[in-house]
């Protein structure tokens, strides 16, 4: 099991994305690939300080990572935490594959008995 607390991880991700400005920020960062807080603030109706704070929240949820380049700090999106959702889908999906196969077998028993 990779994540000890998948629900907590999901909560952090959805908490971080529950704010419309942070979502806009995250989408913008996704388009840019990598950007400084100053770059991002130019495109959004918020101050650089506010952008920085939001980036901190996104980073706390594992949604963005930072890299220092000279005097600048560059932010980039890390879609990693979202894979928790994909993991959930894969796990739950395979459980339903098994259950539906079992339901089919259960019904099939009646099939062989009927005339």
């Amino acid at each position: 099991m990779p994540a000890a607390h998948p629900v907590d991880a999901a909560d952090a991700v959805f908490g971080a994305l529950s704010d419309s400005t942070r979502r806009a920020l995250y989408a913008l960062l996704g388009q840019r690939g990598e950007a400084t807080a100053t770059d991002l603030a130019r495109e959004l109706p918020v101050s650089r300080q506010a952008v920085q704070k939001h980036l901190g929240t996104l980073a706390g949820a594992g949604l963005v990572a930072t890299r220092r380049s000279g005097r600048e700090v560059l932010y980039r999106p890390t879609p990693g935490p979202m894979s928790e959702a994909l993991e959930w889908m894969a796990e739950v999906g395979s459980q339903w594959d098994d259950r539906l196969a079992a339901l089919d077998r259960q019904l099939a028993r009646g099939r062989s008995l009927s005339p």
Partner: protein
Amino acid sequence: MEHTVERELTVPEEAQEVWRSLAEPEWLGEDAAIELREAGEVHAGERDGFVEEADAPRRLVFWWSAPAEEATRVEIDLDELDEGTRVRVTESRPLAILDGRDLAIEFGGAGGGAGPVASGAAAVPLVGASR
């Protein structure tokens, strides 16, 4: 969307018979029990839950969760076909669904007034939050 799992199975039996079969819950897992009525109990392995909706022989909705896991919602729809029944299962995480809807409005809303309204609304809490 990303927090919904859908699976389906088509069987030659009529919906009524499939419905009866749902009540014999070995298919749901080991040590399973399900009461096909509203507020009925659901039990499967370490999961427990309750029935939200039981509309025989068409639709069954229940919630369940394992200890320390978030509750998820399962919808089972039986669609009568010319020959047989299609069993459609949808399991979802309600928290994620609500969030996804919100995201769709924010990112998908190119037209309408959604954009300006959203950014205007977002700017308000920021003032307090940035202190």
